[in-house]
């Protein structure tokens, strides 16, 4: 106990150890948060989901906080459902003859310096034979109003602003010029060229009439802005929050398990070899030499290409290939020294079995050296997973940081200027790498007497 306290006191003398420790703790916190916030199956459903899951998001837009760093504020994306979201009210007036008037009203502020990409209405109508009818009008801050359209709503109707020819013509008439995207005209100062955004509070008013007793109409209003969410979106409209959060537990699991498995197994094997000696030791030495010749990355790529891309298979192969490396030689050299100590002789004298000596007397001696090596090995494995993902061999199911970088590389994010797409996972990867490296580095200096004070 006292020993542990001393170790902690020692660690706290190294600022880089504290810094690294904080990063590691933060990552562990992030991982736990991710797993609680988005359960595993939900994360996979979202990550694998297509348009039906992510229709509310625009494609390839930076995160909302991007606006803090730019002069031109970009419009945010949003999606509201009538009567579910507070601002979007829905009032039903029932008539005696079975018909009903439903009034919807949605007020929203528009303060951006640029225009939304696209807007949608998702109608969901319940009726037997006569479909409801709806009229939509937009009231603008300058007092004018523009009729978006009026239409009968069949069961599931998606209305896209940019594909309504009549709306485009109406907007063109108002702007006195041809405008490709009618959404731009709806939010612009009239007759401005180039379009000036008209800031203020907009009011969307819809009047619907239903013609049957139990008929109802639900409306969802979706605006694809130019920024979205905490981390932006990718080419498939997916919110990057999911892979960014879930990357943490996966990276930690892969890195820690690989580092732990590799170092513990190579330590045990080195101890067994050093203790028994003879042909067993010789065999371990030969296997290590053979393993040094084998192309590590190429074998991993082969496994990924031919056999399975599952992260757990890759993890197993990584551990198997990393056991018989230089570490086993270093450990063996230390064990050979320890083997000659008097306390081992004493253990032998009282008749301890071979296995008791190996696990109770040999291995514990080396654990102080093992801990820094283990922590320092984590970044390598975290980056290995990311490297394989960058080569397109990432786990097909799991959302990881490497997968985001791979997607970004595939869709030429750097060339097209979607910097956030690469920078976000890269920064998290870098933090992970730095955190473990700094901690491991300081631990090495603390535990390794040769390095003390160097």
């Amino acid at each position, binding site marked *: 106990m006292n020993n542990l306290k001393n170790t902690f006191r020692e660690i706290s003398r190294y600022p880089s150890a504290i810094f690294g420790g904080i990063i590691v703790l933060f990552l562990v916190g992030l991982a736990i948060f991710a797993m609680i916030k988005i359960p595993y199956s939900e994360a996979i459903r979202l990550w694998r989901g297509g348009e039906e899951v992510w229709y509310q998001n625009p494609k390839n837009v930076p995160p909302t906080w991007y606006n803090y760093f730019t002069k031109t504020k970009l419009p945010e994306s949003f999606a509201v459902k009538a009567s579910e979201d507070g601002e979007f009210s829905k009032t039903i007036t029932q008539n005696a003859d079975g018909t009903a008037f439903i009034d919807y009203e949605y007020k929203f502020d528009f303060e951006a310096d640029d225009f939304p990409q696209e807007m949608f209405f998702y109608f969901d109508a319940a009726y037997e034979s006569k479909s409801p009818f709806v009229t939509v009008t937009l009231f603008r801050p300058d007092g004018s109003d523009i009729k978006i359209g009026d239409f009968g709503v069949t069961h599931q109707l998606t209305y896209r602003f940019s594909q309504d020819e009549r709306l485009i013509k109406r907007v063109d008439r108002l702007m006195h010029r041809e405008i490709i995207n009618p959404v731009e005209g709806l939010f612009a100062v009239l007759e401005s060229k180039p379009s000036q955004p008209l800031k203020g509070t907009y009011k969307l008013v819809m009047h619907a009439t239903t013609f049957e007793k139990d008929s109802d109409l639900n409306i969802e209003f979706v605006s694809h802005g130019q920024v979205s969410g905490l981390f932006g979106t990718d080419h498939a409209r997916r919110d990057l929050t999911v892979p960014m959060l879930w990357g943490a537990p996966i990276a930690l699991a892969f890195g820690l398990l690989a580092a732990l498995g590799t170092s513990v197994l190579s330590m045990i094997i080195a101890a067994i070899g050093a203790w028994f000696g003879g042909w067993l030791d010789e065999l371990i030495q030969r296997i290590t030499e*053979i393993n040094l*010749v*084998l192309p590590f990355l*190429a074998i991993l790529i082969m*496994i990924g290409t*031919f056999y399975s891309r599952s992260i757990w298979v890759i993890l197993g192969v990584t551990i198997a290939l990393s056991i018989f490396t230089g570490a086993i030689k270093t450990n063996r050299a230390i064990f050979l020294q320890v083997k000659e100590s008097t306390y081992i002789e004493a253990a032998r004298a009282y008749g301890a079995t071979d296995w008791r000596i190996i696990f109770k007397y040999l291995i514990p001696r080396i654990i102080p050296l093992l801990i820094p090596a283990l922590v320092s090995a984590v970044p390598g494995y975290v*980056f290995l997973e990311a490297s394989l993902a*960058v080569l397109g061999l990432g786990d097909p199911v799991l959302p990881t940081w490497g997968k985001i970088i791979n997607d970004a590389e595939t869709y030429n994010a750097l060339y097209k200027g979607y*910097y956030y797409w690469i920078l976000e996972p890269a920064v998290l990867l870098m933090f992970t790498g730095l955190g473990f490296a700094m901690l491991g580095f300081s631990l090495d200096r603390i535990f390794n007497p040769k390095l003390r004070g160097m």
Partner: protein
Amino acid sequence: MTSETPSKENLQIKSTAADTFKRLMRFMSFRVLMLVVTIVVAVYSTIMIANMGGYVDTIMRNDIRESTIMKVAAMTANKPISGDARRQMQEEMIALEEKRLGLDTPFIIRSFRYLGNALTLNLGRAIYMVSDHGSKAVRAIILERLPATLLLMGTAELFLFFTSVFLALMLSRSYGSFWDKLVITLSPTSAAPPWFYGIFFILIFAAVLKILPFGGMVSSPPPETTIGYSLDLLKHMILPASSLVISAFFISLYNWRTFFLIYSSEDYVDMAKAKGLTSRDIERRYILRPTLPTIITNFALLIISLWTGATITETVFLWPGLGRTIFRAIGFYDTPVIVGTTIIYAYLLAITVFLLDFVYAIVDPRVKVGGGNK
């Protein structure tokens, strides 16, 4: 060593020399045998892995069947031909294609044939890959890519090695100075691999500043003059080479510095200082001399590591090197190319390890060949 107490001193020297020679020979033949066994097992393992223990055969068979059926269907689309005749045609073509790729012999037999060919450096022909000159010979494919890899890796790694050893010597002299502390602080940055820095470099220098190319080896079309071509090559090489250097620079500097520090805190160095030798002499005679074997080993291993290239860095920078070729070969299930690169690496490694034993004996008087162990 048992001495038989010879009468004449002369005789004793002679017998010891003969003894040493015999021991040396025995040691050497044992080493060679071990290395050969290592190479054979390693290459055979690679062959087995590259074929997934024969599973790749199944993939290739299915591939052949599918493409042949499509081919036959296209060939006979507008011809009056009976179903049986068509099926027979299919089977014949499939059998022919399987024979061409050697799939008609069982995998186990073929795996030993592959091993024999690989060990005699008969690299054979690629299955699908073709070199830019149109050759299918694995040798041609490898040789075509080798210069690009050697140029990039050689420049980066040699620069890295010599600068870090040289700077580390200087740092170890000014232990505890600002620069020393800076290197210690920055060494965790080496946790990230080169391609990771590569992405940042591309972002800064290619995407934002637009002063260096995104990737590739030369512009398209390439400049006509030799000087223009070299300059263009240099321009394309800056980013990949510097990401290779940056990602390993600080840790390598730190390791060498610590290594030199350990040796310079030996008692005999203090003794030499007390004797009043110049720091140049101390460095040369008391620090560099005992560390020389390690420096040579590292250098030798570095030279042969150039061979494998940097798969991911080359992929990120679209550098047409060997590493990317191996990656593509794996994508094509092109085992001859995979095995070919591995066998050459195995030979290079084995020869280097073997030669290092002799180099040690020459530069390090503490190393005794063969004898001396309990």
